Each structure stands twice: as C-alpha cells, then as structure tokens.
C-alpha cells in the first residue's frame, strides 16, 4: 500500500474513533457507571457487546466514554506542552545568553525529576472534593504543564540552528523588526518541529494517563479512561479467560500507530 493511501486510512480511523468518542452519549447503550451487579465479568452478548467488568458495568459503554476522555484531553495536554516548549524553547534559542542558560537549566532540572512521582505528589496536593470531570481535567493539565521539557530541547535546538541561517541574517541586515522576523521567518520554519512534537506528545500523554490510572491516580471512578480500563489487564489469567478484555489495549495500540503513521506527513507538508 502506498504511503499517502495509508495516511488517509489512518486519518479516517482516527476521525472515526474521535467521532464515536465525541458522541459517546448517543452511541453508548448504557450509562458508563451503571452497575449490573447480577452480571459481573459477563462474556460478550447482544446485551453487552464487549461483556461487563468486575462490577458488572458495560465495557462497550465504558470504552467509548473512555475514548472521549483520553482522546479529547490528551491532545489538549499535548497542545499545552507544545505551546510551553515553543515559547520557552524559542526564547532560549533566539535570545541566547543568560536567558538561554536559565531556561535550559530549568529544563534539565525538570527532566531530572521523576515525572511520575512529581505527578503523584501534585495529585495528592489537589483538593479532594473535586468532581471526577474536574479531576480528569486536572490530571491532563498537570501532564501538559509537566510534559514540556523534552519538546523544549528539540525546539531550542531548531531555533538555535535557524538563528544563524543566512535568510535570517539577511532579514536582520535589511532592518527587519524582531517581531516580524519571528512571525514571518522563524515560526513558519519551526512549524514542522512543533507539529512533530505535538503529534508525538499525544500518545505519550495517553500512555502516561494509562500508567497513572494503573496506579489508581489518574482519572477517578466512575469516569472511564483507557488507562483505568487497562487496569483490567493486570490479571493475565483473567485476560486469557476473557480475551475481549484486550479491546482497550488494541484500540490504544491502533491510535498510537495511526498517530505515528500520520506524523511524517505533517513533517513533509509543512
């Protein structure tokens, strides 16, 4: 299959998944929190397309609501992280001097911190009486706020390269103002890097949320996310007995693959 065709397929798959997640309320046969306590761990049937979880909740309903949570908030967190990386990485690369040193030192310090423990500590500092929806927003906001350092290094390196390019020297020599130089010359050239960082961050944040949920610290019950659905896979023999429990993992893998296959297209078209 040629590459453009593959990208179209990937984009279509992603769009389809996004749409289903967006209209979860309409598509879902049951509310995601409803417990059918007489039917815990039920196998797939016409009543429950993907069976039920250990509390008797419909897994199909939870999967599509979880899709909404994970696929809407992960891009938002990725956007926030990319924005921060773009602003500070660009500033460090462009201005140089003590500003560059300070920003890079802060980045190195942030990268040296174990992200997971920082997230655990920050999550513990949040007030307890927040609703599950606010909690999920807070989790992704924290991911966005803490997930910028690696992107910043890339943006900084790209900006530093561009700063010494002939076309920027020429622009500077012809008296081009600083803002005009940034907007007209620098940003268009940084766009592929920023796009790449954005697309790369999405699956990273989906997976980080999954890790946090596996630790019981991501999206809180009863709100589903791919992360807390993946917790059902902790017991490997239960998965062998109920292979349909792998659906969230398959979906996550599919989304990550699609994002990765679309990514080169962004670099090429920019």
């Amino acid at each position, binding site marked *: 299959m040629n590459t453009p065709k593959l990208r179209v397929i990937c984009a279509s798959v992603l769009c389809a998944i996004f749409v289903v997640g967006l209209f979860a309320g309409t598509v879902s046969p049951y509310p995601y*929190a409803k*417990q059918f*306590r007489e039917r*815990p761990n039920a196998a797939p049937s016409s009543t429950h397309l993907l069976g039920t979880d*250990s*509390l*008797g909740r419909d897994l199909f309903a939870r999967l599509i609501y979880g899709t909404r949570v994970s696929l809407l908030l992960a891009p938002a967190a990725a956007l926030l992280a990319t924005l921060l990386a773009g602003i500070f990485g660009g500033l460090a690369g462009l201005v140089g001097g003590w500003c560059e040193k300070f920003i890079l030192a802060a980045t190195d310090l942030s990268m040296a911190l174990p992200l997971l423990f920082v997230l*655990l500590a920050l*999550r*513990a500092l949040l007030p*307890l*009486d*927040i*609703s*599950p929806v606010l*909690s999920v927003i807070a989790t992704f906001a924290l991911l966005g706020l803490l997930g910028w350092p690696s992107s910043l290094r890339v943006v900084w390196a790209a900006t530093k390269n561009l700063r010494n390019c002939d076309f920027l020297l020429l622009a500077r020599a012809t008296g081009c103002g600083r803002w005009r130089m940034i907007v007209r010359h620098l940003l268009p050239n940084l766009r592929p890097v920023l796009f790449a960082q954005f697309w790369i961050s999405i699956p990273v944040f989906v997976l980080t949320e999954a890790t946090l949920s596996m*630790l*019981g*610290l991501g999206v*809180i*019950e*009863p709100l589903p996310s791919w992360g807390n659905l993946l*917790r059902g896979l*902790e*017991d*490997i*023999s*239960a998965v062998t007995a109920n292979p349909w429990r792998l659906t969230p993992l398959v979906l996550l893998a599919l989304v990550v693959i699609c994002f990765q296959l679309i990514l080169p297209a962004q670099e090429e078209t920019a």
Partner: protein
Amino acid sequence: MPSPLKNLALTILLALAVPVRAQTGGELHFCLHGEPKTFNPILVDDEASENVRYLTGGVLIRLNRQTQALEPALSTSWKISRDRRTITFHLRKGIHFSDGTPFSSEDVAHTMRLLMDPETHSPTGDAFRSGEGTAQVQTPASDVAVITFPAPIAGLERLFDQVAVLSAHSPKKEMAVLGPFYVADYKAGSYVLLQKNPNYWRHDAQGHALPYIDSVRLDIQRNRDIELLRFRRGELQLINRLDAEQFERLQRENPAVTRNAGTGLDAEELWFNQSPAAPLPASKKSWFGMTEFRKAISMAINREDLCRVVYAGYAKPAYGPVSPSNHFWFNAHLEDPKYDPQGALRLLAQAGFRLDNDTLKDRAGNRVEFTVVTNSGNAAREKIATMIQQDLSQVGIKVNVVTLDFPSLIERMTRTFDYEACILGLVNTDLDPNGQMNVWLSSGENHQWNPSQKSPATAWEAEIDKVMREQATAPTEKERKAKFDRVQQIAAERQPFIYLINKDVLLAVSPSVVGAAPVVLEPWGLWNVDTLRLGPAPELGVQK
C-alpha cells in the same frame, strides 16, 4: 547375592520405606511477603518477623489457633493472683535450647527484663506496660517463675503467647531458641532457612520427636502473582492469604489445593471525619456528627453485593468491630442491620434531610455530597468505594471517590485531618479487646473518626472510655465479656465505624502437606507446623 535379586530386594525395601519416609523429613517451602526486620523475638513488629518468631520461638503459654483456647507450652501450669498483677509459672523440666543450653526460670526472668526495659523498645513489651514502674520477676526455683506487674493486666496469660523465651546464658543469644525450628541460614532479600530444632520439647502421642519436617525454607517474595505461579509449578507448598480472585482461579484449576479457613478477623470499614480540627464546611461536620446520618448510610449500603461482587462470595457482611470468628468476644445478641434504602431515607427525613428531585438536601438546602478516600493500588477497596457510590446515589447522595498513595492518606488522617470519609481495613491480630484499646479510647491515636481527644467529645464516647477501662481491670473473663459486649452495642447504635465486610481467610495448600488445618488466626496455615508432614509431591494438574 546375584545382582537382579539384590535389585529386587532393594526395590521391596524402598517400597516398604515409602510410607514412612513420606511421613517425616523433607523441606516445606513457602513465601514471606517482606524482609524479616529482626530475628530477635522481642523486637518483632512486622508480619515476616512474626512468622519466623512463631516457627522458632518457644512460649510459656500457647494460644491454640483452632480452639482459641490457651494451652500449656513451656509452662506446665500457671496461676494468676486475684488482683491480676502476678502470674506464677511452673515450668517444664529437662528442656534445652536449640544449642543445648538448659532452660530454667532464669531465662524467663531474663526475657521479661529485656521485654520490659524501656531501652529495648519492644513492641511486644508494650502490651505488658499497665502502669508506672517495672515488672518484678522472682525465681524461687529453677522451674518456678513469678512475675509481678505494677498494675492489673486484663487477659494477662494470653499475652504470653507472643513472648518467645530467650536464653540468659547461651552464647548464641536470641538465635538459641525453644521452638520447633531454628534459623540456620539467611540471605537478605532471598530466603530464610529454618532447620529442625533437635531439642524441641514436644512429642506426638506415640512419643516421636516433633517437628516431623526437617527444614522450612521461606523465600522472600513480595509479588503475589509470582508466588502463585511458583505454587502452581509445585515450587511452593503453601500460600498464606490469597485474594478472592486468585483463590477462585486456583479453585477452577484444582479445587483440591484451595482451603477456605472461614471468615477472618479483619474488616473493611468506612468512617466519617468528625475531628473538630478538620478543615471542612460546617454543614458537612454537622452531617458527619449525626448518628442518624451515619446509620442511614450504613443502611443504604448493600453489603451482600459487596461480598458477592468484590470478593466473589468469599466474605461476609460485617456489622460490628468483632468478627463472628472471634468466638468468645463476638456479641451475638446484636441485630444485623438489613440493607434498606427506604429505611435510610426515612431516617434521613427524621434528621431533617429531604429528597428533592433525586438529590438529598439538608435543612439549609445544601446538597449532600462527600468524598471518600482510600489508598491507591488496592483494587478491592476501590471497587467497594465505587459500589458504595452507586448505592448512595439511590438515596440522593453524591459520593466522589479519590484514591491517594498511602503516605498522603495517612498524612491527611493523622495530621491535617483534611478528608471527609475514608475506607480502610482494620487488621485484627489479637482476639482480646485490649488489642483495640487504642481504637476505642477517645484519647487513642487510632480512634480514627476523632483521634487524640483531650476529653471525650460525646457522651457515648465517654461511656466507651469508661467501659473499656473497666473491662481492662475486671477480675473475670465473664465480666470483661459483658463490658466489651456493651462497647459493641454502643458501636452498633452510633456507627462511628461503618463496618462493611469480613474477608474469608483463603489459602492454597499443596496436597503433599499432610495435616494442614488452616485457621482464621495468624499464622493461618502454619499454626500447627510442628505436626505437619510432607508426603510425595503429587502432580498439581494445573497450568504451568
């Protein structure tokens, strides 16, 4: 003799020898779920060390884990004075420590001195510290020890089940033991190897020396899944405490290896934060302080569903601080509250709450909503919280569930008091209510709903304080029981803790272990380790 005949004779001999060899000797393998912090029995403070202490320590009085009655061990008899301050032990004669040092009353005196010495910081010794001053030990004869405490101690004789006697003269110090095994080898993070104590004092009815097993290998393994995998491969012969999911899986594969010892002593419970120092809105403090509110919450929780869904049926609804498995102290006269959401609504209405469009509101019109915290990583507790969330939504109450890592949770429970309600488990290792003193006294640190009070906040807490102190000094067990029954009654009426379930004690025992009779008390499957025998390891017939 010609060779074929020799072989035949050897085969016959071996065949005849098999039943005998299957009954004695061999090595028992099982796992400790943590590193033993000490081999000094008087410093034991963790489950792994406690297991080692049980297997190696010789005690004056042993609590029979099956009958829950006290039995003579190193002492042939004992007598407690009327004021419950003095206990006189008559010791067995002709007993030696594992290294051959003779046992006498001097060893008892030495052990008690170490135990009661504040410099030793012995957790076991804490239970004996009833008042100001130290315990006096007299040794009028080599087989008589008289111990006098500064103040009366209720259930005094029972406490000696935890006191492993140390040698006063052995150069090996605490490594010289009087129990069935001694520590022969230890590799940190890997294993503890125990060998049969050749001088162990117990013999079976036929006069054979106990224990039957030659050695016990305790592998240090924190990961329960790996433990289960090793059991299924036949590398381990026993697993103490399985969770319901593991148990059910194992039962599907090979029912012969699963053992349900019955309802355990541990309970899962929910409580509301009633501390005046809690940074909570006044309305919430007022709800949490109302008995009717707490009772209504209790009535609206479907405990049967919790047992069936979360624990696959391997749990029983809990209604009080004492499990029915604690035969003597359980108050059987208390009525089990039934799951009754309508009754809960009626009770809430009496207390001034009203249901408005499926939303419960208080007198001032505030929506009734609270957050339940529990520790992250405990799947069962998270499921319990989620099920309670749905149960309480039936009576219009919105519950948020938050999981926190354990240190953060403890910080909120004990220092900042910044939480509304909490689900945690109460681990009960002692049958005697004195072990729960710190929970029931209003001044106690573990009086979780309102800890470390200077004076009791409510009249019923004052009554619990009074009755608990009275039971601790009552002269007879019957009187103590009557007093503690009253405490259980108050707890049922006031519901400071909303008890949810008592988990079953689930174990896996290989059919090669002969004589295993798991019980609900620690150390569960190992309580009769000195009479366990190892037969040939049969094919488990489970997935490898």
